[in-house]
């Protein structure tokens, strides 16, 4: 901020006021929190199994795509349409995660590279789909037509974009924490992540565990993509994510891969995301400063993680 020629104290207070200064801004911060939390939880789950899922962005996009293209055509009461479309998002992201998981299990492909590359494939697939075979009459350019209002996620604060997606995300975090700590499946997943060779000798099928973990990790991100389509934009847009899947990596790592702390970290990043706009307006700090800060956090944390892993091998 000094570089941008602004007093950092002014800049930060503008950021906080912009993020939490009033009810609409706080709600918008929570919208950002929600959109970050889904991919971050998916990433955290994969990381706990020792899988470096860098592909949440693509998984989220494919999830959103499925929810969007089905959603604009599918007219049904909300209690049918909403669960179905969210499920479609999870399936889309899950398939995208499963692809990487399959490449890893079948060909020992490095999941970092596989998931990263699948991000680009996802963008191209989505762009092709909505301009080509799945283009609807109402859709134009980078987006599909609007979803029928019955398929929108119900808001929990009137006149804001804050929907029940936040509740679902927090519930998911609680579920994942219970799953990892208390269940047999969570125990096996952690064993594969913490000591794969010991897990293998104890009879845990590494390939199977890695495949399903990547699938669920992708499904969570895809579900998140669907909540953006159903709750925030009410349509699919190629630019529906300003990088949630990448920032989600930092969120997961700042939260030490513990779903509860990941939730807290998502809130902090939500403040950054939303407050940046306020900061830009009030203190004239370019929002790129926030992007740069986030980038630095990702770099430092991802670097540390990969270094400690290669050291452990």
């Amino acid at each position, binding site marked *: 901020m000094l570089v941008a020629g602004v007093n950092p104290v002014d800049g930060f207070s503008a950021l906080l006021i912009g993020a939490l200064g009033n009810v609409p801004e706080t709600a918008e911060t929570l919208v950002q929190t929600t959109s970050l939390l889904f991919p971050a939880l998916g990433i955290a789950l994969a990381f706990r199994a020792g899988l470096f899922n860098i592909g949440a962005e693509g998984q989220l996009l494919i999830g959103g795509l499925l929810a969007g293209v089905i959603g604009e055509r599918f007219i049904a009461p909300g209690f049918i349409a909403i669960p179905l479309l969210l499920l479609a998002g999870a399936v889309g992201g899950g398939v995208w995660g499963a692809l990487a998981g399959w490449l890893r299990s079948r060909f020992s492909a490095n999941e970092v590279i596989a998931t990263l590359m699948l991000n680009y494939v996802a963008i191209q697939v989505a762009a092709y789909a909505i301009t080509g075979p799945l283009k609807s009459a109402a859709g134009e350019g980078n987006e599909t037509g609007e979803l029928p209002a019955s398929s929108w996620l119900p808001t929990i604060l009137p006149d804001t974009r804050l929907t029940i997606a936040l509740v679902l995300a927090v519930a998911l975090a609680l579920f994942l924490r219970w799953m990892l700590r208390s*269940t*047999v499946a969570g125990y096996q997943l952690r064993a594969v992540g913490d000591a794969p*060779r*010991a897990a*293998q*000798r104890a009879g845990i099928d590494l390939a199977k565990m890695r495949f399903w973990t990547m699938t669920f990790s992708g499904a969570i991100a895809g579900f998140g993509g669907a909540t953006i389509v159903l709750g925030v934009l009410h349509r699919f847009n190629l630019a529906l994510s300003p990088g949630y899947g990448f920032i989600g990596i930092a969120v997961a790592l700042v939260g030490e891969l513990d779903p509860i702390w990941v939730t807290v970290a998502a809130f902090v990043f939500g403040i950054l995301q939303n407050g940046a706009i306020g900061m830009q307006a009030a203190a004239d700090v370019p929002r790129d400063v926030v992007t740069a800060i986030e980038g630095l956090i990702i770099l430092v944390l991802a670097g540390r993680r990969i270094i400690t892993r290669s050291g452990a091998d």
Partner: protein
Amino acid sequence: MAAIALRGIVKRFGDLVAVDGVDLELEGGLIVGLIGENGAGKSTLANIAFGALAPDEGTVERNGVVGLVHQHFQLVERLSVWENVLLGREPRKGWRLDVAAARARVRELGERYGLHVDPDAIVETLPIGLKQRVELLRELEREPAILLLDEPTAVLAPGEIESFFTTIVTLAKRGVAILVVTHKLAEVIAYTSRVNVMRAGKIVARYVTAQTTTAELARAMVGGEIPPLTQRTVLPRQVLPVVHVQGLQANTESDSIDGVDLVVQAGEILGIAGVEGNGQTALADALAGLVPYEGTIRFRDEDLGPALGPRGRIVRGMQIIPQDRQHEALVLDWTVTENAILGRERNREFRRGPQIDRAAARAFAQTIVERFDVRPPRVDARVRDLSGGNQQKIVVGRVLAGEPTFVLAYQPTRGIDVGAAALVQSRLIEARNAGTAILLISFGLDEIFALADRVVVLYRGKIAGEFGRDAFDRARIGALMAGAS
């Protein structure tokens, strides 16, 4: 004047006092032994003497260059012998390497010390004994006045050990001061003139080697008597073998087997003798269902295919004690309880619906901790914080808890202290007495002689000989291990 003098050395790692006030002097021409259990502080002390670690208190006075030969070779496998020996000190001609001079230098060193190795051989292609020579040559190249050897014979065959010490004795005669850090008491008795015993960071006893015995040294190391091993009972001979291996071929990254036939009976310990790298890992991994293989492995009356992975073998009553407990058996950051149920987490006794039954897991861990005298006896301790011996007690306890039909024990007492090793060995004999079939793979002949009912020698992936317990012949087995026909 001492070649090296350590005075009042103290070294702490966090709360742990690894070395606690040690005085030690070495003189030129003398071979001195430093013995102690794992974790007694021997290697730390050697590293301080070498200069790799700085002491927190005390002084080190060195009169000459110090060389250190590590237990784990510090060689660049892809490089040639001369490149390794002269790494960082390569002779130059202008800005180019003087390869001819380098070769000549390595040959000359080899001549002088009787350590012949082809200077152009690539290190990864050399057998272990020759790698050890390269390691030693590298240190000797710097003309050390003091040579520290940290567990130098851990991976050598009996014949190789003898020739290694011949070289060391020659070096001593030339005036080099030598410290041998080891837990092999027989080598200390055979080759040193003085012995220092370390326990819990202190030197607790010093002997003139000629005036002591292995039994006395062992007592000093452990700080008490070692309990005798459980007696083996005579069991009726079974008709059907538990494990019947025929024509087994398998490869791993480290070794391979090529046509191995084996039979292991119930109530029998079959020992696999051999130098590391002669197929032990391939045999173990094939039995455990970890690698593809050709040939057959019959378990009781069933032919287990390679497609049947570890899980299928475990549920049939096959258990393994892996070689590398820290990576292959335990999750170090987990508690004793979590580790105790690894491999049994799906069993009905430890689950309540989708959840793990924590109370049942704790109770199970508690029985292992008690039966194997794990210290500290806390089931919520993190396994990483336990000593190697206590970690291994958990592994062996877990394996034997289900009264398995067959146990594959790969180096079950590797790197653990004498007390824990005796306990582990006794428990294995008890399991054998109770009818378990045990395949024991060990690089130590002492362990095989102590435990095995029969022994087969593995050399270059094939069985080189078989001996019944009443026909164990150390010289003959040692020769077969080194490749004699």
